[in-house]
């Protein structure tokens, strides 16, 4: 301190500078805090709404609650397709650090997941945010208990209960009811197209199953129901913290569908077919309700619900009896002799007198060709009813050109051939073929003219004629009905709404007297001791209840008579049988096709009889007639004259009790 005075001023100078600057510093700090407050106002006031929405988006999530799929019931309320609880294990990928380690841990408890590792990883990659991936479903209770024990210790592993589609009758309804499975990309694209833009989130839910075939597919939208949303509160890791019941929307279950099918009759049909290949379709010929519609052999649709394994699927796909094909609608056959009622009606429409007799010598010659009757020696002199009874080919050969192929085809179309039935609600229906001159001109450019000899083949249901089993059933139902052009349908009720099909039935447009002659012929087939199906048509249900039928054999390929028995199964003829009962007051019409069943009378008719017996015995009105006092035996002559029991006209479909579960 050399100069005190200088030091003194220096001190004052330092102090003054400090005071000026600390004032400035206070100002800067205050300004800084003011700016921060301004920013707070900006965030909370100006942008507040935006951030409130973002905070809510962080906090809340809607978890889709899949609705229970509607049940499919038979006409008596028996559940054909229902839902049962299924134990499953899921992964919440967003909570898992190392997927491989977690899967190893799961595989330690559930070794079966090892082989599905690749599928699981793919599912995880494709899953949406917050949507868990199913690792294993439909676990046995022991496995579920084990994994539940470990699930709490492995983050992201959830063991819970789900609903799984179950088909209680196994393969009995495999084709008609169909099955459900995971939605595929094509179906998703179609759904998106239909809804016009965004797909329903339900479709992406891992537990969601879509109808893949049959009624499950046709009525998928009705069965599906509406997904509920559960409002959940999640934390930053996506873990559910709380559920908000008020903000949640409950799932609306799908509508139950009541079918016209009768599970007992269906089961009986499947039973009598055994491993035979073919189809049986029974209709109520007054209402059009389909009571039974089988395709044998079937498959277990339950296998498809959780995803069928490759080898199992190949077994089904490669089996020569084609279990995956719906033979009720998807196969066509030459109707053979079952077509003769149609030819007969066509002849009557062309003015042929039913009492006109033709002498069958076993062979019919036309120009240079000769056409053999099935019976080598011939039937002698037959009229129209006799020709039906004996299934005499020569009778139809001789007279067919009076109606002409166009006449036969017109009648055939009136009776239900060469058409599909949209009301049936089954996809994959084949239209079949009823040839006429226009068809020949269209399909055969080299030889467009129709030859009378071709009509000969058509008259006995051979040649180009191709029909499906459902068409045969409709055909016979229309003959049995005689007034209305009934159409088959499978769905009685969707939810609580009755489906009305009957009011849309057109008049058949064929004089009932003509139909009656065809019915007489069929009655004689089954009830005259020399009828072609006499032995196979005995219902043993007393004198009141009789069945009327007609056999048919459809050639699979031409062969010499010597090789018939040696032929392999797949080259054997198809056996057909169509029938209705009771003969005096027709109610049930039935068509049975046994593929490669050699002849209609041999394999098809006995099956038809068993199915028909059960249907008749279950029917309360017919039960009364079976066990009730025998008032006056209805004699054959009266039936032939068409003076049937008055019940024929008053018979209406009896009301079914409403026994659908209401839930």
């Amino acid at each position, binding site marked *: *301190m*050399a100069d005190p005075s200088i*030091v003194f001023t*220096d*001190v004052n*100078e*330092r*102090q003054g*500078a*400090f*005071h000026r*600057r*600390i004032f400035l*510093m*206070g100002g800067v*700090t*205050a300004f*800084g*805090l003011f700016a*921060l*407050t301004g*920013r*707070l*106002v900006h*965030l*909370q*006031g100006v*942008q*507040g709404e*935006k*951030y*409130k929405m*973002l*905070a*809510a988006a*962080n*906090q809340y999530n809607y978890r889709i609650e899949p609705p229970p799929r509607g049940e499919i019931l038979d006409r008596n309320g028996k559940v054909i397709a229902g839902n049962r609880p299924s134990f499953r294990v899921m992964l919440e990928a967003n909570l898992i650090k190392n997927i491989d380690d977690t899967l190893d841990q799961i595989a330690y408890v559930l070794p079966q997941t090892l082989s599905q590792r690749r599928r699981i990883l793919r599912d995880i990659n494709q899953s949406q945010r917050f949507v868990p991936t199913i690792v294993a479903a439909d676990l046995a209770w022991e496995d579920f208990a084990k994994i539940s024990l470990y699930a709490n210790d492995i983050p992201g592993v959830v063991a819970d209960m789900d609903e799984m589609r179950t088909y209680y009758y196994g393969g009995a309804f495999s084709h008609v009811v169909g099955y459900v499975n995971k939605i595929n990309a094509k179906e998703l694209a179609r759904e998106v197209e239909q809804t016009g833009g965004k797909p329903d989130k339900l479709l992406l839910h891992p537990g969601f199953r879509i109808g893949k075939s049959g009624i499950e597919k046709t009525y998928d939208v009705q069965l599906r129901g509406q997904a509920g949303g559960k409002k959940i*509160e*999640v*934390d*930053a*890791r996506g873990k559910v*913290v709380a559920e908000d019941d008020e903000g949640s929307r409950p799932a609306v279950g799908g509508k139950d569908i009541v079918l016209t099918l009768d599970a007992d009759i269906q089961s009986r049909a499947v039973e009598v077919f055994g491993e035979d290949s073919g189809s049986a379709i029974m209709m109520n010929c007054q209402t059009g309700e389909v009571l039974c519609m089988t395709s044998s052999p079937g498959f277990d649709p339950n296998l498809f619900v959780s995803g069928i394994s490759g080898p199992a699927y190949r077994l089904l796909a490669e089996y020569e009896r084609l279990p995956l094909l719906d033979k009720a609608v998807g196969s066509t056959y030459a109707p053979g002799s079952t077509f003769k009622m149609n030819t007969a009606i066509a002849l009557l429409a062309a003015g042929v007198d039913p009492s006109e007799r033709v002498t069958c010598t076993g062979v019919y010659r036309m120009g240079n060709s000769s056409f053999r009757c099935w019976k080598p020696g011939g039937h002698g002199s037959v009229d129209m009813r006799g020709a039906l009874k004996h299934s005499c080919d020569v009778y139809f050969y001789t007279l067919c050109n009076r109606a002409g192929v166009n006449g036969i085809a017109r009648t055939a179309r009136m009776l239900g051939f060469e058409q599909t039935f949209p009301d049936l609600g089954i996809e994959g229906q084949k239209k079949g073929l009823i040839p006429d001159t226009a068809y020949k001109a269209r399909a055969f450019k080299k030889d467009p003219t129709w030859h009378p000899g071709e009509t000969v083949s058509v008259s006995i249901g051979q040649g180009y004629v191709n029909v499906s089993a459902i068409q045969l059933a409709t055909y016979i139902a229309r003959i049995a009905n005689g007034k209305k052009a009934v159409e088959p349908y499978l769905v009685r009720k969707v939810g609580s709404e009755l489906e009305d099909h009957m009011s849309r039935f057109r008049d058949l447009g064929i004089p009932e007297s003509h139909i009656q002659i065809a019915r007489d012929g069929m009655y004689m087939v089954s009830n005259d001791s020399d009828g072609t199906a006499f032995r196979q048509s005995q219902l043993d249900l007393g004198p009141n209840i009789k069945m009327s039928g007609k056999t048919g054999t459809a050639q699979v390929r031409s062969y010499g008579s010597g090789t018939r028995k040696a032929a392999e199964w797949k080259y054997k003829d198809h056996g057909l049988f169509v029938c209705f009962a009771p003969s005096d007051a027709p109610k049930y019409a039935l068509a049975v096709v046994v593929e490669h069943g050699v002849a209609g009378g041999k394999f098809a008719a006995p099956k038809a009889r068993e199915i028909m017996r059960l249907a008749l015995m279950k029917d309360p009105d017919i039960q009364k007639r079976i066990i009730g006092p025998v008032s006056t035996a209805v004699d054959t002559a009266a039936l032939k004259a068409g003076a049937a029991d008055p019940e024929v006209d008053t018979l209406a479909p009896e009301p079914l009790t409403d026994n659908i579960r209401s839930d």
Partner: protein
Amino acid sequence: MVDSALSRPGQRERYDSKLAQIDWVFVGLLATLTGIGILLLYSVGGMKWEPWAFKQLVTFCACMAFMLLLALVDLRVWLMGAYWFYGASLLLLVAVEAVGDVRMGAQRWLSVGGFGFQPSEFMKLAIVLALARFYHECSAKDANWSWKLLFPAAMIGVPAVLVMHQPDLGTAVLISLTGLAVMILAGLNWKVIAAGAAAAAVAIPLAFEFVLHEYQRQRILTFLNPEEDPSGSGYHILQSKIAMGSGGLLGKGLGLGSQSQLNFLPEKHTDFIMAAVCEELGFAGGFMIFLLYGAIILMALRMASLSHSHFGRLAAAGATATFALYVLINGAMVMGLFPVVGVPMPLVSYGGSAMLMVMTGFGLVLGVKVHRYQELPRQASIFQRFE
């Protein structure tokens, strides 16, 4: 006891008269602010005293006692200890470089007997004391602009580089800015300040490119555009803004803030606690806290300016500057105005060592006020000896 009693030597040495000189309103404000912090720690801890609120309360009580004790310490002790404290802190920083623990990717911690501490925390106060002593012994002319300013520059630069190397960008910036604040308060030439600011404007982009670590660069890039990667690096800033913005005027209520309660808000109990405050207590709570901070800082600066000694003035103002920088940087950070640099909100954020340093600083400030009439000998500085 009246103030005039302090002017009487002997009387002012008595501890009861010193205690009476402590600014109890100021202490009350500190307690109120910390109390709100503890309330929020209770809330974000899931409305439980564990794991944070209770510990914070205990730490605060201990620190409060320590602060009051420091307020009674003679300023000469501070003056004499200033360089020693600075030297020791510098040595510890070097030690960290050699044997420090690596936690969360940075070498910041030293462990002694099971307690981990960060020497960079000490340095924040040490730099203030050392610079205050330097300027106390320096003339106004030299403080304005002379070659002697190389010493304070080195005193700031060496620890800043060491801390930066740990790496801890936030603390390095804080140490530099604190030192700079003391230099400016001591009377640095405005032209030099302007030139320095211009140089910084050139240097910062260069430093960004060549000096900063990848994660530091990323933080700054993220700050500039947080929406670019909302689930990655921008997550912190975005979630913080959502928390604050969704609070509204009165907030969602204690324990009801979805962002902080459901862990969307990261570091909700430490660096981002202001976001939790503004979410749960709304604008009212946030504004209240800013008012408290403003009052505390302005009162502390007033106390600094009361001192008769240059050392006291600069030390108290420097300690307050550190505190103010904490508040402004953290506030700007949680509101998305500044990159995420890991600076806590003093007194409100959970954390023992930060609280200890802040309260030590305020102990100094209170002590400066208590000893405001004390004249410190302006010892001949090492430079004056050669004149």
